[in-house]
């Protein structure tokens, strides 16, 4: 089987559409993040989180309204995989055992005879949450910086670095935007926690793979076709590597989808971010990174000749 054996798409020419498409998504993401706020999970917000498993199905809305008074605040409640399991998050200073006992006592009143067991508890202190938040921020900034430097050294041109970083920021920002918009409507937990940061860094690594492979071909082609103009050369490089880009994206998309479907409830949000990231990463290395490199290179030359 062969896909895109000798394709000849004009990726650079399509960049206006791509810029419009990406620009819309990015603006929508930023607006969503600014208006709705990032939906931090327990790792970054602190508080207490429980997963309860009931014998019989329960109603999330009912539990939320019934528990608000005894808990003193509205808990975040979501179904966790099935309609018998719930994920409950609450911000409280109480001892975690006290909270658990309080919840179990209220469940017993609300659903007599419906036995419940505690599957998972998490307690994160507010200061620790801040440390985790900081760590996460540093790791993302640090990762982008390392990527910038490495590409700068290997491909000898700041516009390669800038193009790659812009593509990565594009991917991460849009995933973050989707997670923010889906906070209320997603049937699984899409809060921003440590696992999601791991997913982001994986997306960074993955999207980078694609971009680097294209850049590598540009480097090679620029030696072979010395007279070709820069735009054509980048287009040729994108086409040369298109079959590989698509095949790798397909195999990776296969496994992250498998992870999303079969990986269990704990990994749902993480796997979902990866599914989005693989799609966006492929798109951005084809349409965003290289187009930006062309643009930046043109401007750099213009600035020089002035």
């Amino acid at each position, binding site marked *: 089987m062969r896909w895109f054996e000798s394709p000849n798409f004009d990726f650079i020419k399509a960049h206006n559409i791509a810029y419009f498409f990406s620009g819309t998504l990015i603006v929508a993401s930023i607006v969503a993040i600014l208006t709705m706020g990032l939906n931090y999970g327990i790792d970054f917000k602190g508080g207490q989180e429980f997963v309860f498993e009931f014998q019989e199905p329960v109603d999330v809305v009912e539990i939320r309204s019934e528990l608000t008074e005894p808990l003193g605040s509205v808990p975040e409640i979501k179904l966790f995989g099935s309609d018998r399991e719930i994920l409950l998050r609450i911000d409280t200073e109480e001892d975690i055992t006290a909270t658990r006992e309080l919840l179990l006592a209220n469940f017993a009143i609300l659903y007599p005879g419906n036995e419940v067991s505690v599957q998972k*508890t998490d*307690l994160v202190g507010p200061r620790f949450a801040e440390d985790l938040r900081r760590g996460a921020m540093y790791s993302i900034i640090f*990762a982008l910086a390392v990527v910038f430097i*490495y590409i700068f050294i290997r491909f000898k041109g700041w516009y390669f670095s800038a193009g790659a970083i812009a593509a990565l920021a594009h991917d991460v920002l849009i995933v973050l935007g989707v997670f923010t918009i889906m906070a209320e409507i997603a049937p699984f937990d899409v809060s921003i926690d440590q696992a999601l940061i791991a997913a982001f*860094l994986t997306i960074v690594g993955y999207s980078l793979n694609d971009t680097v492979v294209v850049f*590598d071909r540009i480097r090679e082609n620029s030696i072979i076709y010395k007279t070709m103009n820069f735009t054509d050369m980048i287009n040729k490089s994108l086409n040369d590597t298109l079959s590989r880009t698509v095949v790798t994206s397909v195999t*990776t998309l296969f*496994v992250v989808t498998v992870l999303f479907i079969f990986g269990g409830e704990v*990994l749902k949000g*993480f796997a979902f971010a990866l599914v989005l990231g693989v799609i966006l990463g492929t798109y951005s290395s084809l349409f965003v990174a290289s187009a930006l490199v062309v643009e930046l290179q043109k401007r750099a030359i213009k600035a020089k000749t002035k």
Partner: protein
Amino acid sequence: MKKQNNGFKLGMIALFLGLTLYYLFPTLQWNLEQRHMESLTETERVQYETENIAKIQRLRERSLSLGLDLQGGMYVTLEVGTPQLVLELSGDFADDYLEDVIRVARENYLENRTDFIDEFVAEFERRDSDAMLSRYYRSDAQNITRTSTNAEISAFLKNQRTNAVERAMEIIRSRIDRFGVTEPSILQQGNSRIVVELPGVDDEERVRDLLRGTARLEFRLTPESDEINSAKQAIADFFSELETDEESEEVQNLLEIFDLRGTNQYSFGYAAGRDTAAVNRILRTEDVQRLIPRNMTLLWGATSFAQDNGIPLYEMIAVRSQIELTGDVISEARVAFDPTTNRPEVSMTMDSDGARRWSRITGANIGRPVAIVLDGYVYSYPTVRSQINNGRSSISGIGGVQEAEDLVNILLSGALPAPLEIIEERTVGASLGEASIRAGLYSIIFGLSVVAIFMIVYYRTGGGIADLALLLNIIFILGILAGFQATLTLPGIAGIVLTIGMAVDANVLIFDRIREEMRGGKTLRAAIDNGYANAMSAIIDANVTTFFVAVILYSFGVGPIKGFAVTLMAGIVASLFSAIVITRVIIDYLTREKTSVVSFG
């Protein structure tokens, strides 16, 4: 073409495969062993375990261990209270000024996320640049004199913190060992944090108390009854004249929630359990503190002494501020039962120094009570009937046998050098862990099958070869994890699944290149040679950057996320090796004759 040194490559493959199997063998054995043990009946199993204890222990240690998120258990991060430690190290030199500096330094430290001790020294010097910290930390034993510089004190404090963390870890280890947890892990994180992982633990409350329990045991004398009565009178007068602020929601008059009638002459009064915090708040105010003599301290009783309509009542007991004897002198402790009431108590024996002092204290106070105070609560205050020469004493008023056992454990492991705060706690139930293992296993199997089938359909023979490499790749990853004694977590399994998808990338790059070279008119063997050679730089660049990202994730992530980073790193190394070396050897073997054909689709 034989000039290619495939012997070396084959040797490498054999070596890695050998190492992997060597490291994975105990895991396999352990699995078989567990299966065997599960098939036995309870009594047979116990007998088998005692007979083969060494073997079982060795296998368990060497086999690939599962993270808490997969086998269930408890994960706790504790922080050593550096501010309290810094205050306590000043000992008797401590004053309000120092306490205030520590308070402000603590706020700055929480704000700026820097080192507390640096903030403390900075705050101290900011207030008075000439002031010397040696004033508070002078100690002949520590070789700190009046002329020691603040930098020296800072180094001393940091050193003390390191000691405190190390000692706390030892104490926690000893407590956990006594509690009985298989394969606990206790690690230091940063300069003042301790991470404790306890697989299979489900009694969280008990473990929490065990970890945090400072077990500061004190023996104190009690004031004369007329001293107590005059203090009571002063407080009663003060509050009966107090004008309360109507607007405030907080209780201001102590008499509303606190009854000054004690059950005996040493009892200062009592309050309902839910009001004790409010009582403490009012008693702490400066106006009230002035009414209580300096050498008198008011402490709550550990257990409620009576009930009022089902509401437990707690007694407040007046004791001397001076501590006569501390728990350091306890050399032995065990659970005993009070012969008359049959209630559990902890019976203690002191070392020779303690016994001598105990004998002197009891001898001088016959007919008067000695309060036994644990972590700031009075457990009992029995009246001394005769001089005690054998260094014996006991703590009564304990809730149950289990509590008594835990108390013995804490007393024997020693007092923590500084209070520990739980800043993170996670527990996973065993059944959720099992579900996660199943989910992870399914993901690996499905992910692998889908990718394998796709590769064969797309690249034919080449795809089949890549699949073989992929299979070996997964075994290598597990081998690397076992070899480095890493833990397999759920995110770690996700890392393996992800690696399955990305590992074929190197082969995709190579095979696409080979197809391209063949389109350019090259012979199969030349195309293969060029394909591998030309794809190499892209493969290296792409993998090095991903590896960097994994390293960053490893250094910043905690808990299971670290497991993800580890499998990602292992996956990159293993996939480079299997995709470049292993496939090459197989393809070279298949094309050893000039006429042989290998399809790349």
